[in-house]
């Protein structure tokens, strides 16, 4: 037996460990096996043969990443299972683990690309009325993103008392960097809270929700009215309050009320004064 280089050994083992059908099947279907084969470098030591030993790592690999995805997308799993009555979600997880290998040192970030993968790979297989299932995946991605993101302190509270109405009207604002807004045919915030009890969407209505970290640091998922969603979208795009009122046909009083709420709950973090 020729001694393999460390490089050959690692590439071969990676291939064998990550083969979805296990090391023995992988080696049997040898046309895709990286050369040189390093199978004989692994010791056959009863009671387990070399392939069973490699498969301990293989099973752990798939299980670890599957458990991780389930920990990040628990509500998506419940809703896919509830709506589709199939193993579609499990299949998507398995395909993602093989198709989008992790390249990050931090396993916590492995799931960030999962919703986009599902949309790209399963949207043609899902009836149109169930396409909101991708939105619940997106919502859970936003929750993950909010948990993983650094979130500065709110600076606006100390600045606000010093400002007059005219200055405020022309100012632009910085929102919480973890804020994400989602529109969907499903009431995502309610489904996220009670995935097995909440009524499933019947179509015809668009719901909006926001995900962000509040001032206590906790992640919030909240339904928004269409008007509030539109105003927040405008704020995010850098509009001043006075412009928002005109472009969204919302009264100044309503905007002022939301504004206070968004300062209190951490959505608005800082003010950029016009010079």
């Amino acid at each position, binding site marked *: 037996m020729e001694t393999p280089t460390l490089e050959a050994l*690692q590439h071969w083992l*990676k291939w064998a460990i990550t083969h979805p059908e296990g090391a023995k099947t992988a080696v049997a279907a040898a046309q895709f096996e990286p050369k040189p084969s390093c199978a004989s470098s692994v010791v056959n*030591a009863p009671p387990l043969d070399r392939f069973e030993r490699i498969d301990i790592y293989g099973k752990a690999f798939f299980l670890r990443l599957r458990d991780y995805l389930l920990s990040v997308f628990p509500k998506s799993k419940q809703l896919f299972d509830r709506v589709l009555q199939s193993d579609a979600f499990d299949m998507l997880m398995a395909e993602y683990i093989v198709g989008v290998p992790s390249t990050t040192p931090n396993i916590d970030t492995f799931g960030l690309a999962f919703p986009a993968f599902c949309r790209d790979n399963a949207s043609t297989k899902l009836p149109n009325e169930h396409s909101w299932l991708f939105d619940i995946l997106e919502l859970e991605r936003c929750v993950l993103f909010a948990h993983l993101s650094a979130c500065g302190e709110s600076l606006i509270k100390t600045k606000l008392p010093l400002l007059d109405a005219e200055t405020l009207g022309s100012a632009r604002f910085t929102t919480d960097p973890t804020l994400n807004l989602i529109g969907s045919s499903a009431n995502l915030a309610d489904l996220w809270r009670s995935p097995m009890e909440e009524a499933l969407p019947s179509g015809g209505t668009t719901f909006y929700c926001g995900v962000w970290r509040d001032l206590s640091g906790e992640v919030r998922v909240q339904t928004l009215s269409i008007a509030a969603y539109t105003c927040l979208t405008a704020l995010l795009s850098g509009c001043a309050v006075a412009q928002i009122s005109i472009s969204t046909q919302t009264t100044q009083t309503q905007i002022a009320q939301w504004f206070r709420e968004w300062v209190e709950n951490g959505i608005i973090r800082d003010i950029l004064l016009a010079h």
Partner: protein
Amino acid sequence: MARFASKPGQPSGAGVGLRSKYHRDFATGKPKVSWLEIVSENYLGLDGRGGRALELLLQIREHYPVVMHGVSLSLGSVDPLNLDYLLQLKRLKSVTSASWYSDHLCWTGVGGENLHDLLPLPYTMDALQHLCPRIHKVQEVMGERLVLENVSSYLTFAHSEMTEWEFLSTLTRRTGCELLLDVNNVYVSAINHSFDPREFLNGIPQHTVRQFHLAGYSDNGTHLVDTHDHPVWPPVWSLYREALLRFGPIPTLIEWDDRLPPLDGLLEEAAKAEILMEAYGNPNARGASALAEVGHHPS
């Protein structure tokens, strides 16, 4: 519990692994435990600047010495070292004032991919030559010694030229790195590869061990798996007593990662370790008889 007085930032006695399930317990109360170990990657966030977990850790950290334990250094990989990741670790160490950082003698991926597992290396001269400059580089970037842990393994390589303990000892000699001796991993690998775990302990130079790990394995019938989802099993406690006799009352960490018990259950395991540590050098202490079962008390 927590009979070992720790200087600020200096772990001694028995600590526990801080896991997200316990963040609230530690952030709101001040459970009595000597020190905490964090899994470094869990506090890096998206870009190394941390997220919610780091915010909570910084609150908790004010009350406990902390050490960092990484799982993605991939020291044995033929891929280049990930310098961005190393710099993120360095920043985390600085903001948490962690006492030391550790990772494993393993590789976790190759070809730019991370399998998020601790994969075994062949114990060869070639592998030694590959690892030594990488350890030097890590120590140069971090500005201090690496603490290197032995892993549990489920396979061995036909072309290995030395034992795992000979390999580890050589690494410490050539690079000055220290060791995190995982007593459970020694036992699991000893059963899986039919060697005497005491030979492993006796093969490690006494002054090189900075920290111990204790954990619970799962028995799969044909082999043991390092699952970290049980209390420490009796044979591992026995081996730990032998490790105390050989290496002294080195800071010891209870690792528990899956099927986590309520915090009290975890703290009980740490208390057991501290009773045994207290017995070291004190024949009248409560754990002395337990130590005497496995060997002569050190004079």
